[in-house]
């Protein structure tokens, strides 16, 4: 390909013109970054909504939990649709509790440890669910500018080749190539900046939710272990 052909004679500096006159590599970079930006925003919107819902659910469940309702009743009402967050933790622990008292023998010797394990696993699963897809935001936040920069460097290389071919260094020859090259970096930053900001925000929200889950699990495990001890004393 003659590099001089890469730059059209009449330069269109509109965004669409810049995109069309870019070389295939730069085009691919731009399209990829645009797709990444769309996906980033999808994650941001989904996660924001999810955290808002999760917070509301936790508030509601804690209200019900501390309202003095009997745990068995609560378990029965939640058993079929454990959902996410605190209800899931509650249901998992209660199920383990019930199982231990069902059947032939009462396996309450290490019930407290088992409940702790179950709680841990459930918390782990919940945090994983909250945390999922945030890695993508982090990746785009850190790699987006580099990808854009790659497109820019490539575009500027093409621009310089065309300058050498046309043997003309006037601004009209240099500027369009550089503009279209910089456009790639602009898209990279456009994708990366919201990704970084949202990642930090969402990550802190994950941390908050996790500590809240753990706090609830500890409290609940304390209640259950007290019950176990009472029953052991009764049995003895």
């Amino acid at each position, binding site marked *: 390909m003659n590099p001089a052909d890469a730059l059209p004679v009449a330069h269109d*500096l509109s965004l669409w013109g810049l995109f069309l006159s870019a070389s295939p590599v730069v085009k691919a970079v731009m399209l990829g970054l645009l797709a990444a930006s769309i996906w980033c925003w999808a994650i941001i919107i989904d996660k924001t909504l999810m955290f808002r819902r999760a917070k509301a659910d936790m508030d509601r469940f804690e209200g019900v939990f501390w309202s003095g309702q009997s745990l068995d009743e609560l378990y029965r009402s939640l058993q079929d649709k454990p959902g996410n967050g605190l209800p899931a933790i509650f249901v998992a622990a209660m199920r383990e509790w019930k199982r231990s008292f069902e059947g032939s023998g009462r396996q309450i010797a290490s019930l407290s440890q088992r409940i702790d394990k179950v709680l841990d696993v459930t918390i782990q699963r919940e945090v994983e669910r909250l945390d999922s897809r945030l890695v993508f935001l982090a990746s785009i936040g850190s790699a987006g500018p580099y990808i854009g920069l790659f497109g820019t460097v490539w575009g500027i290389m093409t621009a310089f080749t065309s300058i050498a071919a046309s043997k003309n260094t006037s601004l009209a020859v240099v500027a369009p190539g550089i503009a279209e090259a910089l456009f790639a970096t602009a898209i990279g930053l456009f994708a990366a900046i919201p990704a970084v900001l949202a990642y930090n925000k969402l990550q802190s929200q994950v941390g908050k939710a996790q500590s809240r889950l753990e706090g609830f699990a500890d409290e609940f495990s304390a209640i259950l272990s007290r019950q176990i001890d009472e029953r052991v004393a009764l049995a003895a």
Partner: protein
Amino acid sequence: MRIPFNRSEPGTWVSAGLHGALLAAAIVGFSSSKLPNADEGIPVEILTDNQFSEMTKGERQAAKVLPNAKPRADRVADTRQERDPGEAKLDAPAPPKRPAEVKIAEAETEAASAPPPPRPEPPKPDPKIEAAKAAAAKAAAAEARASAARAAEAKAAEAQKVAEQQEAEALEKARVEAAKAKAQAEARAKAEAEHRKELAEAKAKAEADAKARALAKAKADEEAKDELEAKMKALADAERRKEIADAKAKAEAEAKSKALAQAKAKADAEAKARRQAEAADKFSPGDIRALLASKEASQSSGATGREVQRTASLGTAAGTAQRLNPSQRDQLVGLLSEQLHRCWQVPIAAQSADRPPVPTVRVKLNQDGTLAGEPVVTNMSGDQLFRSVADSATRATRRCAPLKIPSQFQPFYADWRDLLVNFDPRAV
């Protein structure tokens, strides 16, 4: 791949929609920014002040500055002519294809041949206006005479004529006619009742517009009943209508004549332009001869001077600077430093010092040897003696001004206008 819309996770769709909207806005918003046309810069040669004053006489294309800066001289002659090498050119502009006076003459003949546009045009004898006027006059006469039958006949004939002449303004005219007929009808009614009927018939014959005629008839009938009041009223009415019709006809005639004059002027201008273009295309040997005569014949372009100088010195035609040769330079330096040192009171401490500091003073001079600016010490030293020695050096420079520059060095002002002088206490 189809992404299902999940109500609890609408992010993908919302994000895609937002990006689409943003892109569309950006594409529309940044659509029409065009680069300005690239203008090449004017080639500029940057010279320092010194370089400018050191421009020697010579030619720009020469290889180097010769010691005796002289332009090229190919032949010996009493008068000195400096010419650039190459073919001589006479910078006479090419004569116009057609001399200016020819153009003027043509324009004049055209103006003479073309009849001047009748600007204050007298109202043309327009048949329509004439007809209207004649009709009005006739109507008046009929009224005065009160011979209704004759008038009616004349009226009918007139109306017919008018109807034939103007088909476009048939309605207008018809109205005028109706008005006139009405007026006559009144007159006739006053005179005789029978005549009214005849008139109505004549009217019917004359009118192109059936409606107008019916109106007039009806009115005439009414007027027959109450003659006097209706007559007065109708008279005034007829007068007014006639006036309006006249004014309208006049305005139309004027507009038409104006349009005609414009069309004519345009046609004239076009014809003139065509004639000029033809004249410009015409082959004229005179033009060619004039063009040839404006160019100087090819000739030897050698420069002349007092003596032949084959190689030109580098420089410009207007440059006047000369260069000092080394011995002259030594002489000048010696003269200047001798003058300066004579004025210099070396501080005692510096006189006895083993290695005294040597300040360097920058002295800027005018052509007559006076100081062009304050002398400035250009170097620095940590020696505690330096300050006093430097101060004494600048004082000495000030005291010595104006320096005496022998006249043979005057042409080399560029060499000594800016001096750096070392004041070495040991040299005194």
